């Protein structure tokens, strides 16, 4: 049985989450930003699994299945949007998509 303290496991999930957050903040390529969001979703699911194992309840795994469904929808919609953006702007730079910005 795993005897790693639950704090270490949560810490690991937190490290993964913050790596995703850093990627989302630093990268400007839309594909990379979407990948970073995936990493963050995955870390959130990892916390659910850790908690479910800690209290020996199946609810954490049920929540992970819901996260999986949400992620699948989010990825398909976001990739369709990225395709449209690429057809309009011929670039994946998220700074180029600023037509809604105030012109001052």
């Amino acid at each position, binding site marked *: 049985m795993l005897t790693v303290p639950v704090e270490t496991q949560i810490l690991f999930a937190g490290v993964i989450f913050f790596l995703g957050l850093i990627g989302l903040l630093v990268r400007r390529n839309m594909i990379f930003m979407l990948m970073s969001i995936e*990493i963050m979703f995955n870390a959130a699911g*990892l916390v659910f699994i850790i908690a479910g194992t800690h209290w020996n309840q199946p609810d954490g795994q049920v929540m*992970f299945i819901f996260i*999986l469904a949400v992620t699948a929808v989010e990825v*398909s919609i976001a990739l369709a949007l990225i395709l449209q953006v690429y057809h309009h702007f011929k670039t994946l730079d998220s700074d180029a998509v600023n037509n809604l910005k105030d012109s001052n």
Partner: protein
Amino acid sequence: MDVFFYIAAVVAIISTVMAISGRNAIHSLLYLILSLLAISVIFYLLSAPFIAALEVIIYAGAIMVLFIFVTMMLNIGLEREAEKKWLKPRMWIIPSILAVVLLVNLILALKNIKTISSDKEAILPKQVGISLFSTYLLGVEIAAILLMAGVIGAYHLGSQKKKVKHRFLEIK
């Protein structure tokens, strides 16, 4: 068993760092797949074998294939230069080492499978299914509606619209 957790955690963290810091999208996606596999090993060690299988099948299988398809459709990256770099060992040596570490980790963990399964608590898929379709039935229905909306939305956004040119409404 703790050693397996730490090895898989280190592999996951390294491959995640490589995934968010890479320049080539395809290489980053491969690192991300490796990170997902490492996290799947951790799910297995956390006595959630069903979720470990789902992680490999849906995340590393289906969702990453979507990513790779779109990346290939958009033809991102420096293909000409990348082709020359493919043959250099430093392009494939780090992911190979990480993948081999993960494989050895998994093999050693499977060798100790008796110490895992003889323990009291592995949350089996049966319990998950019973909980999913009794307590969380409303959530399942909402997820079904969400998936339906996702299918329609992705179809609508993905379809190429016919461009209607109008001389007064033309957008620069």
